[in-house]
């Protein structure tokens, strides 16, 4: 059997691939926005709040950080509807799962960045007589968010790649479409290489952006 590679076969499936990519992008963007918001709120609550809230949120964060995303997906796709007695569409289930995962990861990012704003900044706030609200809103939070930006971007890139796992629960994302084409054409090398290239073309500029942000933005705003 000759092993000549024929990438032209992919040209037959550009529409399907575009549709898969669109699903992947929609899902990822939505989960980045929702997950980051959730992570921000949880990061704040875990940095203050009462002990019970902190404990419960800690449990959630550790569960989602410490288990495979694939199992989380299976769990939310198949167990959650049984428990709640509600059927979700694939897209909703995937959104819930990846949002919860992203929330757990980013809450730790925010918590670390909140802690990294030094005690000296608090001292300066007190010395200036700033009210509590202004201390948090005008001084501590903006610095924490700025410091979190590079890690958040990395988290977002990871989520974009990890979103390929939703293909395992039957969602028609880029990965799923790629696998289908690969099965139907018996050309896994060409198809999966092209799919990987599509992921790379989107992820690479974002990972570069992390470096730029670290070098430009953070240098400007760091003490």
């Amino acid at each position, binding site marked *: 059997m000759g092993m000549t590679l024929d990438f032209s076969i992919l040209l037959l499936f550009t529409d399907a691939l575009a549709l898969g990519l669109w699903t992947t992008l929609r899902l990822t963007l939505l989960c980045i926005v929702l997950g980051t918001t959730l992570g921000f709120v949880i990061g704040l609550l875990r940095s203050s709040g009462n002990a019970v809230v902190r404990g419960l949120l800690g449990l959630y964060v550790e569960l989602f950080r410490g288990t495979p995303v694939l199992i989380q997906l299976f769990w939310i796709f198949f167990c959650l509807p049984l428990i709640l007695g509600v059927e979700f569409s694939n897209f909703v289930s995937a959104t819930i799962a990846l949002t919860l995962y992203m929330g757990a990861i980013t809450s730790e990012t925010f918590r670390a960045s909140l802690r990294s704003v030094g005690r000296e900044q608090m*001292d300066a706030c007190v010395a200036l007589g700033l009210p509590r609200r202004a201390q948090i809103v005008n001084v501590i939070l903006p610095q924490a968010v*700025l410091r979190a930006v590079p890690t958040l971007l990395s988290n977002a890139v990871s989520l974009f790649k990890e979103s390929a796992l939703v293909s395992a629960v039957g969602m028609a994302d880029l990965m799923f479409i790629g696998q289908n084409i690969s099965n139907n054409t018996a050309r896994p090398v060409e198809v999966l290489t092209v799919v990987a290239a599509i992921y790379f073309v989107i992820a690479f500029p974002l990972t570069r952006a992390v470096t730029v942000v670290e070098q430009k933005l953070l240098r400007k705003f760091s003490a």
Partner: protein
Amino acid sequence: MADMRDGSALVEIRDLHKSYGPNIQVLKGLNIQMMPGERVVVIGPSGGGKSTLLRVVMGLEQIQGGSVRFGGKPYISAKGDKTVIDTELRKQIGMVFQHYTLFPHLSIMENLILAPRKVHGESRASARERGQKILERFGLGAKADAYPSQLSGGQKQRVAIARALMLDPKLMLFDEVTSALDPELVAEVEAVILQLAESGMPMMMVTHDMWFARNVASRVIFCAGGVVVEDGPPEQVLGDPREERTREFINRVFHIKA
């Protein structure tokens, strides 16, 4: 003696006790009475409680005993395990720290106007106008839109002083404000403080720079082991100390300088 005129003091520290945890006692019954218009420089060995003293006066620390009065009113006191601080009185005191503590995400002008706007509800325009005047007075007129990371250490420290002055404090505290600076930048910061001193601003300062202490102080306090060891005019404490411990310290410091 000033000590006798009770009630007219600007700052009156009585029997101040401060410890970090159960084992580290930093201030052990410290007494200071500072009169209006005085410029008090606190000197002494490291770990003697100088910076802690300033932080207590700024209302940044819990205390374990004693009290501080400010402008004749009760300001800080230890009540059981708690430290009661009058936060309205605290607003009349400004402080500049060793490591600038500017807000790095805000421009110089925003650093200056944040507190006047949030504390006194001053309008942005009015605060900016005052801010620009202070910056110009300190030779920083062109830096309003710069960010702290774009300034030298000396410039940052002058901005920190300007920021504190925006609130019209009745007392300024300077905690080793030149210690983190490169030697060639020290003079520009000291010049600003001298300028303030000439304008009559009461100040309490911790410094290791004995030349500067002599120039700026109206009174020098030698603090060691958590208590005031010697307290008097700069010529006396720096030039001809009465206490043996002060003499040892001064000799050592000036010996190193020479």
